[in-house]
Each structure stands twice: as C-alpha cells, then as structure tokens.
C-alpha cells in the first residue's frame, strides 16, 4: 500500500515533460523564492550569530523603536503600523489575484495597484524610520547604546528587505498597468498576476521574521 503510493509519487515526478503541473514562469518563481529564502535565512542566522558574539550589550529595542504619542512613549508603535500596512497589502494582493482569475479586469488592476501603493507607503515609512535612527546617532559602525553590530545588522537587514519591497512595488506597478491594458485578458491567462502574488507573499512573510527577530527580541 505504502509502497504503491511511493511508486505513484515517483512515477508522477519522473513523468516526461513537466515535473510540476504549472507554467514555467510559476515554477521559476517558486525556485527563486527557495533561493531567496536561503539568502534571507543566511542573513538572519548571521545576524543572530553576530548578536551572540557581540561583546557590548545589545540595545533595548523597545526603547530604540519607541514612538512619542502625546508625551507618552509607546514602544514599537511605528513599526507595528508598518507591519500592519505590509500585511494588509498581502490581503489586497490576494484579492487582485482572485479577481484576475475571475476575469474581472478592473478590480484586479485596482487591487494590484493598491498593493503597490501600500508597498510604497511601507518603503516610505522605512525611510522615515532610518532618518530618525540616523538622527539619534545610530550608524552602521556605532550607536549610542552599545554593540555596534546592532546598527550594522539593522541597516543591512531592513535595507535588503526594503530593496525587495521596492523592487516589488515596481514589479506590481508594471503588472497593474498590464492588467489594466488588458494584456492578460487578451492572452486569456492571468498567471503572471499570480506569479507576482507569490513574490509579494514571500516578501511579506520574510518581514514577519525580520520583525520578530529584529524588533521584538
């Protein structure tokens, strides 16, 4: 029984033509995500290792990333908003893809465009956060509160992720325009929108890890 299932699995995989029942582009996006996950994974592990090796105390992230609201210090408020925005952009993207498959050109374009906008807002907020930190004296090589690896890791990780978001904004904007122009409708295939959605979903998920390891801990 088990053997048969195993043989079936092997036969499916070894079949001619296509190992995975999907378009080439989608297969490649999955592979890219796998590779990129290794990049982010390695970055995060390196960050943890650098943090473990640091000889000076690690700054208290709750204080560093606090926002002053009417005189009170609310830890992590700003980054919480950023996270919220990025997560909702994941939702709008899912809607965009779904409308695409339903053939609703207008709504698909709208939601993908909205996703790009939210992404752009996220990048903008990141720029604000960087500026604030720089103003407070955080540099890649030093900061006022302790281990220099803090600033180095922070700028490196958020910078690299921000680069992904920025590229994603450009990518989604192009896709939105192409949807609006009816490129996919004419082709009868909204697959490329789904592929863009995969990328965006990946960038979202990576942020959860960054957020947890960089801000919360």
């Amino acid at each position, binding site marked *: 029984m088990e053997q048969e299932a195993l043989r079936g699995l092997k036969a499916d*995989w*070894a*079949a*001619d*033509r*296509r*190992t*995975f*029942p*999907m*378009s*080439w582009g989608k*297969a*490649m996006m999955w*592979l*890219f995500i*796998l*590779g*990129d996950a*290794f*990049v982010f*994974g*390695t*970055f995060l592990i*390196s960050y943890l*290792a*650098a943090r473990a*090796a*640091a*000889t*000076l105390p690690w700054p208290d992230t709750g204080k560093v990333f606090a926002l002053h609201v009417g005189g009170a210090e609310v830890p992590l408020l700003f980054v919480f908003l950023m996270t919220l925005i990025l997560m909702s952009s994941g939702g709008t993207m899912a809607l965009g893809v779904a409308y695409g498959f339903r053939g609703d050109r207008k709504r698909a374009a709208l939601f993908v465009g909205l996703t790009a906008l939210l992404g752009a807002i996220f990048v903008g907020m990141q720029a604000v956060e960087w500026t604030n930190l720089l103003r407070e004296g955080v540099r*890649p*090589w030093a900061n006022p509160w302790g*281990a*220099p*690896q803090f*600033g*180095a890791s922070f700028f*490196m990780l958020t910078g*690299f992720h921000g680069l992904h978001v920025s590229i994603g904004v450009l990518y989604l904007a192009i896709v939105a325009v192409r949807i609006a122009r009816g490129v996919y409708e004419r*082709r*009868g*295939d909204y*697959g490329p929108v789904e592929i863009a959605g995969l990328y965006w979903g990946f960038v979202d998920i990576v942020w959860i890890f960054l957020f947890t390891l960089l801000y919360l801990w």
Partner: protein
Amino acid sequence: MGGTSAKHAESGLHHAHEPTSFWTKYVFSQDHKVIAIQYTVTALLVGAVGLVFSWLIRLQLGFPGSVSIVQPDSYLQFMTQHGMIMVIYLLTALLLGGFGNYLIPLMIGTRDMAFPFLNMLSYWTYFVSVILLFAAFFVAGGASGAGWTLYPPQSVLEGASPGAGWGVRLLLLSIAVFVASGTMGSLNYITTVLQLRTQGMTLMRLPLSVWGIFVGAVLALLAFPALFVGGVMLLLDSLFGTSFFIPIVNVFGQQLGREGGNPLLFQHLFWYFGHPEVYIVILPAMGLVSDILANHARKPIFGYRAMVWALLAIGGISFVVWAHHMFVSGMNPYFGFWFAAATVVIAIPSAVKTYNWLLTLWRGNLRFPTPMLFAIGFVSTFVAGGLTGLFLGNVIADVPLHDTYFVVGHFHLVMGVSAIFAILAGIYHWFPKAVGRMYNETLGKVHFWVTFVGAYLIFFPMYWMGFMGLPRRYFSFAAVETLPPSVQGLNVLMTVAALAVGAAQLLFVFNMIWSALRGKRAEGNPWGATTLEWQTPTTPPPHGNWGPELPVVHRWAYDYSLPGAPRDFVPQTEPEPQPAAAAKAAKAAKSEPQPEEGSGA
C-alpha cells in the same frame, strides 16, 4: 491549471524569433547554443589569465627570484586571483554556463531554455563580474592578496594585507554580481530540466550529463546565498567600518576601533558555500565523463540508477560537511566529530561513481579518441585526489596536514585537474556537433599526453611536501631551516612540468581555432551516440534545434551494444522494436475491449 494553453504558447515561441542582425545573432543572442559558446570562450580566456598567474607562482617557487614582478606581496595577489579565477570564473562558469547551456536543451529535446532573455542576461552579468574582477588589478593597492578564502580580519584591514582597500571591495562586488548571474542561470537550468522535457524523456531517461548539471545547478541556487551574504557583510566591514567579523585588533601597534566581531562567522559562511561549490563544479564534470565513457566504451553506463542516486546523495551531504575546512580554526572542537563522520560518508557515493566508471569499461569495446583519453584521465586524477580527502576529512589526520601543500595537491587533483579534464573531454567530444567540423586528432593526443603526465608531475609531489609539513601560501621556503635540500629539486621539477603543461594548452587553442576554420566536415553523429543532441536535423543544430516536430524519446540514453540491434547503438528516438510493440498493443487491446479513440479515422 491553464496548462495546455501555456504549453502551446511556450513551445511555439522560438520559431517566430529567428534573429537576423549580427548583434542579435552573435552578441546579444538569446540562443542557448550561442550563449554557451560565449560562456565557454569567455571562461577560457579568463582561465588563461589564471594559468599565467600559476606560472608566475611556480616560477617563484621553482626558481626563487627569477621573475622580478613576483614579490612577497604580489605573490599573494597572483595566488589569490589565480584561485578565485580558476574556481569561480573558469570552472563554475564553464561547466554550468557553457556545458549547461549547450547540452540541456539539446539533450532533453527542447528548442531552447525556458527563459532565453534571462539566459542572455545571465551571460552579460557574468561578463560584468569579469570586468570588475580585472578592474581590481588597476586600483591603488592592487588586487586582493588575502587568499581566495578572503578570511577576515586581514582581507579587509588596510595595511594588514595587500589589496585590502578597493582591491578586495571590487572583488567582493564582482562576486556578488557573479552570484546574481549564477542564480539567473541556475533558475533557468533547473526550470528547463524539470518542465521542458520532450515527450518520453522521463527523469530516469535523462543522460547523466543533464543529471550532473541539474544537481550542480540546484547546489548553486542553495549555496551561493551564503557566499553572497558573507560577501555583503565583508564588504560592509570594509566599506562602512562595521564589525561583523572584526573584533578588537591591533595592527602594527595601532588599536583599530572595532569591537566584538567574530572572524569564524565568515569562515562558516564561506565554507557553507565553499564545500558545495566544489560539487557545483565536479558533479557536472562527473556527468559529462559518464556519458563520454559510455559512448566510447560502446557500453551502457554501469548502474545508471546508482549513478543518479550517488549524484543526489553527494549533493545532499555536501551541505552538512562544511566545517571540515575548519578543524583547527578554533571553532568548538566537538564539532569535529560530526564533520569528520559526515565527510568520510561522502566517500561512499563517490566510490560508487568510480566503481561504475570502471565497470563501464569492463567488457567494453573501447576506442581512444582524445575525449575518451581525457575522460579516463579524469577518473585517474579524481581518484588520486579524492582518496587523500580521507586524510583531510578524518579530523585528527587533518591536524598536521591542514594548510600544507598536501591540501594544495588534494584540491588541485580532485577538483582542479579533474574538472579541467572533464571540460577538455567535453569540448573535444561535442566540438563536431557545435562547430560542424572535426578537431585534429593528433594534436589532441599530444595535448592529452603532456597534460596528463604533467598534471601528475606538478601535483603528486605536493603530497610529499605536505607530509614534510611545507605550509601553503609561502612566498619562499628559505626561512624554514629544517627542510632537506632535495625539496628544491622537487620544486624545480614541478615548475618545469607546469610550464610544459601550459605550453600544451597552446596546442589545444591552436587545434580548436584551426579546426573550426579548416577541419574536416563532421557528420551529424560521428561518435555513434544515442543521445538526442546527435540526432538534430543539421549540424551544427539550427536555431530552435529541431525541425517542425520535437523529437520523441522511446528509451534511455545508454542503449549501446544492445543485443539484437543492427548497430552497436540505438538512438533514444528509435521506437521499441516492432514485435515487442505489437505484443504490447495486443495486450492493451485485450484488456480494453472498447475501440480506441479515433481509431476509426
């Protein structure tokens, strides 16, 4: 999932796009065959520079002081760039970018790579990385001399090693660009192998060349990230004064304002990439050699399934052995137990491959054109180099040998010479297909004999030097007082052999150029080979590779000397013999009484 429509759109793609202008045909070409040749020629040219550097190194070691441009600092620079060029810009680029591009679409029966534009981009990105690599020679302080491993702190502390300023920065930039290029390439190769195989080409019917390149590409996709991350962090340490890898240090009495970095972290990152890297190079090489041996032995490759599983096993295990390069690095010594055990386990699949190559020759009908000689040479040097890995992997035996010439001999034989032999075998073997003319056999044989004997003379004595304890990366051994004078004799021998081997490569270059212009016209299938690339409608294959119809595959890639067959090879495109097919059809008819769909027409 929209499969059929996409399929039609995708496979019809290339007919429409026959390039016409010179630029789109030869320079910014999207044809995998042209890109393959671009990759191959570029990599060989870069490799020639690496080869010249090796002469300078060898001249200094054999005849100290004989070349005035080789000084203690420039020696390290030549050595570093030699290693970097050979491993990354020659072997990796040529095996994946050159052979991967040429062979994958032809061997699996498709018209091109899945993403021809990405493919072109991959080549030109590689080209940019080469420019950056060479640009580093011309900046103040020159190229990096920190060893190809680029260990911090010295690689990025200005004053601590030659080229620690812009030299190493440009090198790191070049590496990052190379990683981008290699990733684009790998994504393409993997997708193509998984999704674009022609009808009948199941995974277990793929020629081993494709398997080797495929697994190599997967390793590249998953190992390059560590090099990229390590490189970026090192670049930040150099450019922005961060302290990822640099603790408090005091260089020539000067306390540098660094704090709390960990030099070993870089070593882990580097070797997490570095060990799989040697398999990125050697697995494709193994694949090529398997196909060439089977063809010229006129025998099926022995134990095809075992060969495939061995490739996968080596690829998998290669990710959990990296710290065998760090046994005496100061890491937690208890790691040594695991990394030693995992490392020597790799010897088993590697041995399986060796046995199966030998058993492929067994009871064969061997002929010895140049590619066959180089393929057998590969088996020999792979064994000569691979066995000594059992010293270096077995942690305690590594202690006296680590960072001595024993290591230099080991990796040159097992991955340097072997991979070069596989590449040369492959170039000779597929030259008639790629160019449409035969190479000159006599020149090829001379090339082989000098290179084969020379390689042993250069690299085998390094084992003895390693036992004697000569450290590697030494500009001169004059300061080591307790060496027997005969060591210098060995060094002279090795240098003379290196120069001879270098000269023999000129024969190869001449042979290739002359034969491409003047060689005898080649038939479509001069080696009597079974695989698809030899069944193309014209030679060299046209744009789009096949005529109006894609080939259909009916059998595995190794039906050599099949009993009962009229010739001693049966191409993969040949249907099963009539009686068997008829019997099968009859059986199918019996179990399924309804008339087949469309049979009435």
